[in-house]
């Protein structure tokens, strides 16, 4: 071996290697910060002109979205509400299932069964979102349409959507956040120190009592991280729900065709021009602010200031 190039060669070369590595790590660390900062700056710069031009209240609290009409109307209140309600229900369905699956995998599953469930969950994470959308379009929508026809049989006012509605979107979102919630919750549960579990069992608590009273509380911060990421994924998803939600701007009622913040951008960016395009950037800004706020608030509130058992 060439003595010059080996780091055991001399003190000097060793120091250079150390320093280079240190600088490299720092640079990589700042790369992410740089990306976040530049995205934030870009979103603010491109999102605010329309806010000023059209009027903040008109965009945020207007209910009529007719960007191509004359005069145009850019109200996105229904779109914002749809994103909030859709995400809320998706999380309401997805998180309990996800966390309990994680408990199953980490605690109660027989090894052989876990060996089937675990890869299935991992595979679920790898499926591209457009596939979820296609399945929703071809399977969920026809089912919803049957239900819709049954429920609104005698309704004169209901506009039939062919099953493309809020419920379909919520179901697809709930399934899509499952792998995130499961994987992160599971590692949180596995990271709970073994002595906690054995102490609880030794004190006479049953396995189920131990899970709910000891293990889950101890894994709380990890599970919260899982929920936050799940919310992020649900609110940020566009491809899948653009296929199943119908994409017409309506009040988010279960059987209405609805448009989310993400799909509002995706579906009209192609041909939008001038103010219309700028408003789409504003929608992007709204979405961005939403995700920031959700991340900060959820982490703060749910953690309750505690910083234990970091994962």
């Amino acid at each position: 071996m060439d003595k010059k190039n080996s780091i055991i060669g001399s003190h000097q070369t060793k120091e250079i290697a150390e320093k280079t590595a240190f600088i490299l790590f720092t640079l990589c660390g700042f790369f992410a910060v740089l990306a976040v900062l530049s995205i934030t700056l870009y979103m603010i710069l491109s999102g605010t002109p329309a806010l000023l031009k059209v009027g903040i209240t008109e965009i945020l609290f207007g209910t009529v979205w007719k960007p191509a009409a004359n005069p145009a109307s850019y109200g996105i209140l229904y779109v914002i509400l749809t994103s909030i309600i859709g995400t809320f229900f998706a999380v309401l369905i997805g998180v309990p299932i996800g966390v309990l699956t994680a408990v199953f995998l980490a605690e109660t599953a027989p090894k052989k069964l876990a060996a089937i469930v675990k890869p299935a969950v991992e595979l679920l994470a790898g499926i591209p979102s457009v596939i979820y959308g296609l399945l929703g379009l071809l399977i969920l929508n026809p089912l919803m349409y049957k239900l819709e026809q049954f429920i609104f049989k005698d309704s004169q006012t209901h506009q039939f959507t062919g099953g493309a509605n809020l419920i379909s979107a919520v179901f697809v979102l709930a399934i899509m956040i499952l792998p995130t919630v499961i994987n992160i919750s599971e590692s949180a549960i596995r990271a709970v120190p073994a002595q906690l579990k054995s102490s609880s069992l030794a004190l006479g608590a049953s396995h189920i009592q131990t899970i709910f009273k000891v293990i889950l509380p101890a894994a709380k911060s990890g599970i919260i991280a899982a929920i936050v990421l799940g919310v992020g994924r649900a609110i940020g998803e566009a491809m899948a729900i653009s296929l199943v939600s119908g994409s017409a701007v309506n009040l988010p009622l279960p059987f209405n065709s609805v448009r989310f913040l993400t799909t509002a951008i995706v579906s009209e960016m192609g041909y939008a021009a001038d103010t219309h395009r700028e408003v789409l950037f504003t929608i992007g800004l709204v979405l961005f602010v939403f995700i920031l706020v959700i991340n900060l608030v959820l982490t703060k509130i749910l953690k309750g200031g505690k910083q234990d058992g970091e994962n």
Partner: protein
Amino acid sequence: MKRKMKQILGMMLLGVFAATMVTGCGTSTGENSDTKTEQKTKTTDNNVTGDTGNLNGTITMIGSTSMEKFANALGEAFMEKNPGVTVSPEFVGSSAGIEALVGGTADIGNASRNLEDSEKEAGAVENIVAIDGIAIVTDEDNKVKDLKKDDLTKIYSGEITNWKELGGDDTPIVVVGREAGSGTRGAFEEILGIEDKCKYANELDSTGAVMAKVAATKGAIGYVSLDVLDDTVNALTLEGVEPTAENIKSGDYFLSRPFVMATKGEISEQNDLVKALFDYLKSEEGKQLVESVGLITVD
């Protein structure tokens, strides 16, 4: 062995994950390059002359927003053939385009409708370069095979909501359309005179999505450009006329509109650049271009 299998499975999953990441990145860079090309076209607008090729100069096209896709494709193709020429299309609407032509600020006025008599009197000559045709599609089981213009208008404005009102089954009508800003939607609403009055149950962002939705949904109705029709859906006859290129050229099928590139005076009176552009449109290559953006050629 088992461990190795696990490793392999892990690698595969990682691969799938990486693939999704890459596709994710792919779309975003696609968008970036879009804006980049936009900027590029803008900068080239300023450089009026180049030395390569026999033709030099600028062609100004002003007019219809619906013709944006066509005009841009034409401009790009023509500039590639004649590097010395700059085609600068602007999209402000048909009427404003003809006005600019008559007023002398544009070489060509684009209009996605026939010219008015007043416009012709002012000196604009109607050169129809392509025809835009729209087909109305329903799901295969639908018994309604023909629609009157009036019925179609009522379906899309929400006055007729069930197929039984039109002699079909007792099935609700699922109104499928395109997103705001789409050229097909613009043309459809403009021809029927129901701009921004449509009550859509589904606003999809591509022709393919409309086809898929209509094919899969009982009672659905949608509109698509003619060139994508296939066996998965019914293409309706309108006022008894089938949506074919021949019927559109003859003017019998009402859901169509001409794309006019108007000139001030006959083409033969124009400068060499404009003549060359029209010659290019008449060539085989030009016809292919017209078809490539989903339009029907005229002959």
